[in-house]
């Protein structure tokens, strides 16, 4: 996969859902491979249909792939039930970003997802 394909470049230049959510505690994550850092702001709602991702925002300091993957992932999960997003696997992330990066860059694609998992509350899953 070419990491610097149009989809990735576009998301990296115009990240969706970037920023913070007032009144929500940030969950911090660090990518042990490269030292990149992210803060996730996650809001979940208990609806008649179960817990849902009401809103997600983030701040990320990372490479193009990690930024783009975070952006794509945040769009993907917004509004979904927590039960549904708890089933997401690394392979799904690779599909979202348009393919499997080379081994040394896979952790860039999944970093946002890993950070998100830290923020996802356990109730309702």
């Amino acid at each position, binding site marked *: 996969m070419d990491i610097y394909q149009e989809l990735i470049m576009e998301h990296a230049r115009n990240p969706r859902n970037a920023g913070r959510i007032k009144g929500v505690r940030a969950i911090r994550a660090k990518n042990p491979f*490269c*030292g990149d850092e992210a803060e996730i702001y996650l809001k979940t709602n208990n609806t008649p249909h179960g817990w849902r991702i009401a809103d997600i925002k983030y701040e990320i300091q*990372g*490479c*193009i792939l990690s930024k783009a993957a975070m952006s794509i992932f945040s769009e993907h999960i917004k509004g979904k039930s927590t039960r549904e997003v708890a089933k997401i696997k690394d392979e799904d992330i690779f599909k979202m970003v348009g393919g499997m990066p080379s081994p040394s*860059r896979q952790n860039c694609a999944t970093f946002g997802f890993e950070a998100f998992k830290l923020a996802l509350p356990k109730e309702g899953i």
Partner: protein
Amino acid sequence: MALDSKKIRKDFPILSRKINGRSLVYLDNAATTQKPKAILEKLKKHYEQSHANVHRGVYALAEEATSEFEGARKKIADFVGAKSPNEIIFTRNATEAVNLVAYSLAKKLKKGDRILTAVSEHHSNFVPWLRLAKESGLKLDIVKLTPTRDFNIRDFKSKLTRKTKLVAVAHVSNVSGYIYPVQKIAREAHKAGALVLVDGAQSAGHMPVDVKKIDCDFFAFSAHKMGGPSGAGALYGKKEILEKLEPFLSGGEMVREVSTKDASWNDAPWKFEAGTPNIEGAILWGEAIDYLKKIGMKNIERHEKELLKYALGKLKNLSFINLHGMTGSINRTSIISFNTKGVHPHDAATLLDRYGICVRAGHHCAQPFMRELGVPATLRASLWLYNTRREIDILISALRKVHRELA
């Protein structure tokens, strides 16, 4: 004498391969170096002619293998200026050499004793001390950097106390390439009654090394960073100190006599070498040393210095390159860490790879150092005897393209 690059490059078969359709430009020598074909030929010869376990058999083949293995120990001892081959303990790598000292010394240290290291150290010469301090109730003191990210000798002196039992510092930083004043550090440390460990992973193979002159008590280094194979490393230790230290691992080879109740230890260095050692690793390392000696360590040092100056001159002219103040070429080997403004190091390294250029992007196993620089990661180009000005030019022109494309 100037190095004959053309001839030297022919000795390293990998340098003629293509990466992504381009000639390989290998600038990650601080991570590991490429191998001269002399060691390939040596391996073939060893396996075809002289292989057996060492120290055990009384038959001719075992004696031959033992003599090759112990001969390698002698070559390595001479290479770093040890008084005797018995001051060289074979390990897997520099990391294991540092750990050997940490474990063996742990038994001699007591609560409240202090260890002094630097914030710029590779994790290999930092984490073992962090751990030892935590587990044995010792205090870890950490030397700061100067504004140009060099070793802060004043801070070092102020943190050296009577309680300091060990000073552990790099000979050459794997991030800045700066050569630390280890001779001076050792002199001060000894005055305070501390032992001195020098992490020589980045100096051996790049400059002449003389442990007697440095007067360090320990010197840790790896074969794979100087043209030898991976899986082989060594700890130099002063004879009288090795004699007093307890063994690290236990098992065969490191013992003299074993009963059902007790065991006594072999002499140094063998008491620190439990089990069958990396026989061919040591022998190939010896061969790599022969190769380097033929070229001459002084010549290699001079070649690297010239390339360093050339590369720094070019990089300083690029407005989008941040050298983090590490712009000097005095007391420095050819390691250059930098950031490309507006481009993450991983993106830069991935794009450079398209031009066949191998550079490292990351924290270089020196996270405390990265924190000092205020970045999570840097790019790092590190050179060796086979690199050329032409390769620096290729790097510079590729960096311009990367910056244009991504920043």
